[in-house]
């Protein structure tokens, strides 16, 4: 095993060497980094060109110059790695990358997690209800999302989710016709999850239509979108429905222990509502938030642990997930309380179409700053989630279907195991193995950045650095960003192979 890893790592280094070499040559021969200076009317043009040629070592032909770059990048001569400076402003490349990486992670982390969670959940649903209405609709949706160019989605989102939503906030009442349209669309979606007789479907449609209609009517009448809040009652009701939902998924509602564990966690969440709101003022920090999260999760773990004696796993899962969502709702409620202030500060245009944060915002309020980050995140996150959601949906559906046709599933069913256990314990665990490859590559791609998304939404992450490097012919910047991406891609391949063989003992690493 160790020998295998060692050999693969040394091979990976060799691949990296080859790919950086090729990238360097491609980039070096593709254009002239001095083109900008040559066209300028600066009287000192010749001096600048001579100086740049010297600092960038342009007199050395690219095949040899690569080795000079490599020597500096590895820090062979000085002991400290040096990726050089950017051509135009002479910033150290390493600093540029160091500022870009957190931005890129902020951009991609949430959407990657959302896409994985939603995609796998809906993929499983689609597979266990194969050839149902839900399956067909999800299949169509995934194909549609597969076919969407992200920049096109981005322009649409900017128009409808940002500009028109901001216009709507100025007069946040919902007229009857749009309310009926919204209620119909949402009711159709909710009904899609229900299977059974026509009567049951129609009843579900009726109930969800009425519920959504009333909800939006009240929201419109009270101008909820302008002055949103959940309050302790909203949090408790939403949390309780989460607890019931998770119990239904993981153990079935017949398991009263799981249900009461989940509801107790929700009760805990409701109990800390007022202390939390008193503590978390404008001067809060991330440490306090982390402490809150840890407190909720640990106490819900023990709630689940003490509520049952046998088969603790699913019960603990239910109570921890319930606690997580109650905590999320509490934080959301707190953010909603600052919405009005933020609305005024942003001059009535809260949802932003460009950039990663608002530089003109003059405040130190923890909640307003975070709300600002979130309103800038919402468009790119939606766009990226939509696009990568489809991939996870298709892969997990195919994978679950494959596993469900296996003999051990038949055996599990034959010995009388409940269908829920068959799916959760036998099918899912095996179906998730092939997905690790996909996840490994996606996580490696986190740092590489999303060139198109960053360009459309004006974020200064790794993707826009790479973009800029190509446009300005900046070899140092280009090599800096691309070698990180290449390194992560190689490592992801290796990690995927290793994880795969660890999770699935049937696959042995060939000696």
């Amino acid at each position, binding site marked *: 095993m160790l020998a295998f890893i060692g050999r693969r790592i040394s091979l990976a280094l060799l691949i990296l060497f080859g790919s950086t070499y090729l990238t360097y040559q491609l980039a070096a021969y593709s254009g002239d980094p001095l083109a900008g200076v040559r066209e300028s009317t600066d009287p000192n043009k010749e001096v600048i060109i001579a100086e740049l040629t010297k600092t960038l070592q342009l007199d050395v032909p690219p095949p040899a110059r690569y080795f000079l770059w490599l020597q500096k990048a590895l820090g062979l001569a000085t002991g400290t790695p040096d990726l050089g400076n950017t051509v135009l402003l002479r910033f150290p490349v390493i600093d540029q990358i160091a500022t870009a990486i957190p931005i890129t992670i902020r951009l991609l982390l949430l959407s990657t997690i959302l896409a994985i969670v939603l995609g796998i959940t809906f993929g499983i649903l689609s597979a266990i209800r194969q050839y149902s209405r839900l399956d067909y609709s999800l299949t169509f949706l995934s194909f549609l999302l597969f*076919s969407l160019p992200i920049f096109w989605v981005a322009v649409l989102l900017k128009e409808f989710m940002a500009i028109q939503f901001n216009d709507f906030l100025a007069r946040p009442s919902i007229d009857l016709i749009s309310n009926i349209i919204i209620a119909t669309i949402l009711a159709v979606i909710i009904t899609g999850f229900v299977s059974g007789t026509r009567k049951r479907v129609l009843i579900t449609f009726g109930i969800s239509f009425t519920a959504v209609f009333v909800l939006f009517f009240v929201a419109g009448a009270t101008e909820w979108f302008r002055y949103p809040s959940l309050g302790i009652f909203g949090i408790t009701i939403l949390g309780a429905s989460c607890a019931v939902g998770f119990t239904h998924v993981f153990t079935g509602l017949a398991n009263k222990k799981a249900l009461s564990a989940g509801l107790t966690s929700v009760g805990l969440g409701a109990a800390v509502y007022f202390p939390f709101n008193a503590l978390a003022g404008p001067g809060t920090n991330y440490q306090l938030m982390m402490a809150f999260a840890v407190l909720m999760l640990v106490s819900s773990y023990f709630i689940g642990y003490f509520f049952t004696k046998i088969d603790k796993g699913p019960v603990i899962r239910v109570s921890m997930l319930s606690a997580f969502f109650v905590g999320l709702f509490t934080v959301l409620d707190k953010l909603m309380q600052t919405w009005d202030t933020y609305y005024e500060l942003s001059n009535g245009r809260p949802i932003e179409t460009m950039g990663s944060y608002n530089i003109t915002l003059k405040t130190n309020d923890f909640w307003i700053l975070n709300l600002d980050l979130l309103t800038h995140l919402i468009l790119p996150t939606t766009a990226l989630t939509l696009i990568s959601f489809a991939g996870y949906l298709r892969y997990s559906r195919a994978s679950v279907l494959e596993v469900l046709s296996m003999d051990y599933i038949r055996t599990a069913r034959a010995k009388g195991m409940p269908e829920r256990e068959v799916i959760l314990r036998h099918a899912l665990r095996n179906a998730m193995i092939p997905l690790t490859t996909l996840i490994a590559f996606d996580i490696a791609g986190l740092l590489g950045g999303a060139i198109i998304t960053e360009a459309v939404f004006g974020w200064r992450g790794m993707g826009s650095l790479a973009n800029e490097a190509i446009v300005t012919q900046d070899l140092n910047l280009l090599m800096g960003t691309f070698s990180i991406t290449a390194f992560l891609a190689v490592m992801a391949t290796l990690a995927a192979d290793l994880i795969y063989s660890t999770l699935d003992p049937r696959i042995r690493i060939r000696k």
Partner: protein
Amino acid sequence: MATNFRKKKNSTAPMEGSETGSGNIEVVGLSQGQIIRKRFFQHKPAVAGLIFMIFFTIFVYSAAGIHLGTDQNKISIPGWWKYSHEDIVPQGSCATGCPSPDHPMGQLPNGRDYFSLVMRGSEISLMIMVVIGGLAGIIGTVMGSVSGFFGGIIDAVMMRFTDFIITVPVILIGAVIGYNIGNAGVLLLAVFLGLFSWTGLARLVRGEFLTLREREFVDAARVAGASNRRIIFKHILPNSVGVIIVSTTLLLSSSILIETGLSFLGFGVQPPDVSLGRLISDYQGEFIYAPWLFWWPGVIIIAIALSINFIGDGLRDAFDPRQSRRINRKDFLAKTSTRDAVNKR
């Protein structure tokens, strides 16, 4: 030997059909090709996609005409549409350039007819798509099959080479060819993109070959004295053709997105050439004042990619007997009333 093998292959289809419980009767006495065709034509979205692609391709190429070669020696066959994408026409009846009978997709501020631009763009995007897909399909199949069949050191070397290709950024290829070499031509761009996008297919084909070469019919062929070449081309390749066709189709739909994405960033197709991505990139700012300039190319990209994805899905169902049971719920309940059916799912 070959005839025996063929017989065996044909006879497996009804057997696999019987596993599904319903396919038995409908496929008796049909050859493999006939079964696949039958299954494909049962898949309605795929057939709709195929019909759309055929008509759309004919429509686009006849409307815009065919233009080949560089500026010096150009072969041009004009299409039936009255304007060419290079014509500058005076602004029509609508001052904002909105769609009118004379300009069904509107006009640009500088007077160009948008319909002819969109048609020319679709032509180029389709051409790039086919070149990338075809080239990547061929390279991926060859790499994957050689690697999977021979295994050992050949496999290791070829797979590490694949890893190497994965690390070379596609955007850089686009930039070098499209952006910097300038108008070396759209075809060159497509060829280079194709040379770097075969990696996924190669891995899939390799996996397929790795399992197939362990099967009995390969051993039988080898015992009978068949050469490696014969085993690859006559025995394994026909059995993995499903995987290859399906993933090549999906490769086609992703390559149109790669091209449009690159062109959107300004790295792909360079002016005066147009492509669908280029058009969106150029006129996305006009969304509020002239939304048709934005909608048309986008809708066409989605329609092309969606049809191809559906064709791919139909082909997957047609080639994979296990996944092809498109029975509606009523049939399902009528045919299988017991839990026995659930077990087979």
